């Protein structure tokens, strides 16, 4: 179209709204990464091939995360599956936090899994992590088999919520296809740098 036709048309509003869903797509290989945890130890996703990996995008400042940590949602679940080859990794892509902050929070909350320092936002961006929490499950072959919310209760209003991650882990550890593979994640927006 000629430029002056656009001008004559008055309003050019070709806008793609709402970004594409996670670039870590269910059914495809999970994006590779290496990162340092809160104690400076390196974690390489490729070296975890053969295990089931849960990635939990997190942010200690987010009320949704605090509510779940108050209820010990994540640590209970990670403990339940740790002897079944499930590796739980929290990822903190909050731009204004660092490993020291992650260390303090981990000690305060008393959970055992590592927190990967992604304050540069590289891993979050490669996965398309939008919210905290935002959950991804990767099977033994490195394929994403679940992506989305921790459960179906964003407002925290229900007495018992349907935990999609628990269900997906039950399926994957039993060698079955994941019943509910994709849900819409909820939470605060991931606080990437501007």
């Amino acid at each position: 179209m000629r430029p002056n036709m656009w001008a004559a048309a008055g309003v050019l509003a070709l806008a793609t709204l709402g970004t594409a869903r996670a670039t870590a797509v269910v059914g495809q290989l999970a994006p590779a990464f290496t990162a340092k945890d809160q104690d400076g130890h390196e974690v390489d996703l490729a070296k975890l091939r053969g295990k089931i990996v849960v990635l939990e995008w997190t942010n200690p400042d987010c009320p949704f995360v605090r509510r779940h940590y108050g209820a010990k949602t994540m640590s209970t679940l990670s403990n339940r599956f740790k002897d079944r080859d499930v590796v739980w990794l929290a990822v903190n892509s909050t731009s204004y936090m660092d490993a020291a902050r992650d260390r303090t929070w981990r000690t305060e909350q008393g959970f055992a899994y590592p927190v990967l320092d992604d304050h540069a936002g590289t891993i979050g961006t490669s996965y398309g992590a939008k919210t905290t929490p935002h959950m991804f499950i990767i099977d033994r072959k490195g394929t994403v088999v679940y992506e989305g919310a921790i459960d179906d209760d964003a407002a925290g209003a229900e007495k018992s919520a349907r935990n999609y991650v628990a269900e997906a882990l039950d399926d994957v550890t039993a060698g079955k296809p994941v019943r509910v593979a994709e849900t819409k994640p909820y939470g605060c927006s991931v606080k990437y740098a501007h």
Partner: protein
Amino acid sequence: MRLLAALAVLFAAVSASAEDPSPVDVRLVASTTTIEAGKQFEVGVLLHMRPGWHVYWLNPGDAGLPTSVRWTMPDGFTVGALRWPVPQRFEQPGGVVGYGYLDSALLGATVTAPATLTGEGSIPVRADVGWLACEKICVRGRKTLDVVLGRDADPAASAPGLFADWAKRLPIDPRSESAPATLTARGSVPADGTSGTVTVDIDWKQPPASVEWFPPDDPALDVQAAQSHTDGGRTRLTFQAKRLSGQQPKQPVLESVVAYSDASGVRHGLRVPVDLDGKET
């Protein structure tokens, strides 16, 4: 011991960074405090946010939480659905999109009084309000508001001017006579979980100066490639969606809103319902 207690209180107050005074003030208002049998009036919650803070729309976008209002009215009074003013769009880092309100928003509803008013004539109204307010960080808030209408009404509750102002910011129904456009929709989102494309053409009576679409969403849907293209008198909205396995959308018809500005720059809204089954709405 008293000194220690006093110091403890001081430290608690000073270190309460997560417990700072709420960035959102809320007020319960009504279009009138005079209640007549069988007649309708409006109630609303006016939210006022500190500069830079926003709360969320019915569809919060990629993250956030919709603002919620739960009404409690005396027996015989019925309250209609909450009405949402046209939202604003926030583009957050990382391409995370949010929809909601900066500065202030009036969330209102129509109340119908019963055919006979019983009792002394004092009408207590309660609103339980919940929100997620975000600026650089997010803070959840909750407040229960009570006013009395009718006899011994709270004079501060009466705000007819407020309702009149905010009425202009409500999306117009496309079937109403004052609708600025006609809509034609095609396509559907199949029940079998395969992807479908939906297109809505908006034919404007007067070409708007700008158009912004707040697309529909539902936790049970994967909505992608929502696009809005305006060429003179027509805006074409398209999106692709598929139903996520094991989940059902809350409604077969999703709400979406097109915000448009007229020649004088005033922002209005048009309600654009989208029927997932492809029926005429």
